[in-house]
């Protein structure tokens, strides 16, 4: 047994977990929010409620793994801040704290709800029930009979397909609260989006801006929303969509040795040469979850390659020159690729950390 190699892979994974988690902790301000991104020579952006929401459970899981109290504290700080800025109707505003023209946001509220629901599952903290209820019911009140959100979208009436990732937290809330109305509305959203799958396996409207190419970031949002919703509902209704998306992403990952093209068109054809690193991490997470369902080790190998690509594309030179980037994950590789050009988003680090935690679990299960 090549023990040295195993120790090296395991050690590197643990090191990456720590440096990435430390960067996320550094992104948190005194007032309690995680700042959306860091831009070299410009600095940090404003605190971002949406991503602060789903960073909470990531840091909590890191705390459980490492036992490091600073991650527990960071989780608490994020939670307190988010609860302090929640509107009494249950929503959170779009954008980050320095953004202009902020509106009540369906997607942002849903991501924070996801974080709160996860924290409820981990801690059983009943003080979270009211915020969960308020946000779940607010989201549900906006869904019409056709599964469309009638307000709260980034762009007018456009309901993108990555709203499966709104349905998912709605289901979490619905089951926590035993609220069938929320569950029913979430299911309507999922059914509508499921019908948007085309013959290539792409789910139409997975893109940020309708008609443009979709980043793997939003494609993975769509996919993960289906995977988690299927799990919660114990449903096979989305299996075909999930399988087709997984298979396409698996093939492109394999063909490109982990460097998944950053954008795809509606025929599920790549339209870019750069890698959306956030998307890589998110797709890796989806692969791990699908492995849990079907047991196909090839999916884990795919996930490992996606994660290794992110790791390999970190520039040690930049990290040494700019200490604020140590542990950060860029939006794209090359750095000036179209997704989050020239920036290190906090959600890239979050998803990378989630993927690393899953990889670490797998290593411990299989090799130790």
């Amino acid at each position, binding site marked *: 047994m090549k023990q040295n190699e195993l120790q090296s892979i395991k050690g590197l994974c643990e090191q990456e977990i720590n440096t990435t988690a430390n960067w996320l902790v550094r992104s948190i301000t005194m007032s309690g929010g995680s700042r959306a991104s860091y831009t070299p020579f410009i600095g940090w952006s404003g605190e971002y409620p949406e991503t602060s929401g789903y960073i909470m459970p990531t840091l909590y899981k890191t705390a459980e793994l490492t036992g490091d109290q600073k991650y527990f504290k960071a989780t608490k700080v994020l939670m307190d801040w988010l609860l302090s800025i929640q509107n009494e109707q249950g929503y959170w505003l779009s954008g980050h704290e320095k953004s202009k023209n902020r509106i009540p946001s369906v997607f942002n509220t849903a991501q924070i709800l996801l974080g709160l629901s996860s924290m409820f599952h981990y801690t059983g903290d009943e003080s979270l029930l009211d915020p969960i209820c308020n946000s779940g019911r607010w989201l549900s009140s906006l869904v019409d009979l056709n599964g469309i959100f009638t307000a709260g979208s980034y762009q007018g009436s456009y309901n993108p397909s990555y709203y499966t990732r709104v349905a998912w937290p709605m289901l979490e809330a619905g089951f926590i609260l035993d609220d069938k109305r929320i569950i029913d509305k979430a299911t309507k959203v999922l059914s509508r989006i499921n019908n948007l799958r085309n013959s290539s396996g792409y789910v139409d409207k997975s893109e940020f801006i309708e008609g443009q190419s979709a980043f793997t970031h939003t494609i993975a949002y769509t996919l993960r929303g289906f995977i988690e919703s299927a799990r919660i509902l114990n449903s096979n209704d989305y299996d075909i969509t999930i399988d087709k998306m997984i298979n396409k992403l698996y093939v492109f990952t394999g063909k490109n040795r982990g460097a998944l093209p950053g954008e795809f068109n509606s025929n599920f054809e790549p339209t870019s040469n750069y890698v959306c690193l956030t998307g890589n991490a998110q797709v890796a997470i989806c692969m791990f979850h699908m492995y849990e369902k079907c047991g196909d080790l090839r999916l884990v*190998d795919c996930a*490992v390659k996606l994660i290794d690509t992110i790791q390999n594309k970190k520039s040690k030179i930049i990290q040494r020159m700019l200490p604020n980037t140590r542990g950060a994950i860029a939006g794209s590789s090359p750095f000036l690729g179209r997704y989050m050009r020239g920036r290190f988003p906090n959600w890239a680090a979050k998803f990378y950390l989630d993927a690393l935690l899953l990889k670490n679990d797998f290593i411990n299960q*299989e090799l130790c």
Partner: protein
Amino acid sequence: MTRVLITVGNYNSKAAIILINELIEAGVKVDGLIVIRRLNVKRIFQMSRSYGLSFMKSKLLSLLGPGKRAEIGLVEKRFKEISTRTNTLGKLIKLHNMSVCKANTLNSSSVVKFINSLNSHYVVYSGGGIFSKFTLDGINTPVINAHLGKIPNVRGMNAAEWSFLLGQKPLVSVHIIDYGIDTGKVLVEQEYNINNVKSVLDLRERALLAGISATLYFLAHGENCSNKDNITFTRHCYVMSSLFTLMCNKRLREKGKIL
């Protein structure tokens, strides 16, 4: 007498040299070789674009010489049994008066002309890249390949390793090369022994030698496989990550109970 052409991806490939020697010993006439020059500017440029510089470093080293990590143990042992008169491609070509076509890619017009001019019974694939649809349509000779896994269950790269990890029987499949990757009609299936296998490299070498044996079997005896219609092709296998190679090594050793 069966006549074949052989594709070779590496002029120093011991596996190819073993294959050719065994074919000749079995009475198969090797009409010629298609030798692909792997170290060419176009290929280097394409690979650096696709895979980046760090991958290129390791890949260039392997292109410059024989696949050293693949040629320890069984393959090396078999290679050493070959007479010094026939232990290089150059010697084989001269001794058996083989025609040679050297090209930068399998899919060049010179390769197509070469294959069609010799009118051999089969082209035996032993490396050099992937045949394009255009090339396959242009040649008049079927191409056969020994794939190191069961088709359609385990298609693609690292088939021997994936076969093991996915709980498939250790066997090789000699098949016709068609437009897809490892999708062609299966001609011969041959199992190989993985008792006391020491490592992934050992596993691959056993599979490789079984592939040579299965190719010989087909050329001597014909098909031994009844193909079913409406085969469902499963997920393609890609080159394993280093983590998975490590896992495969661990499981092989556990299976072989090596301490």
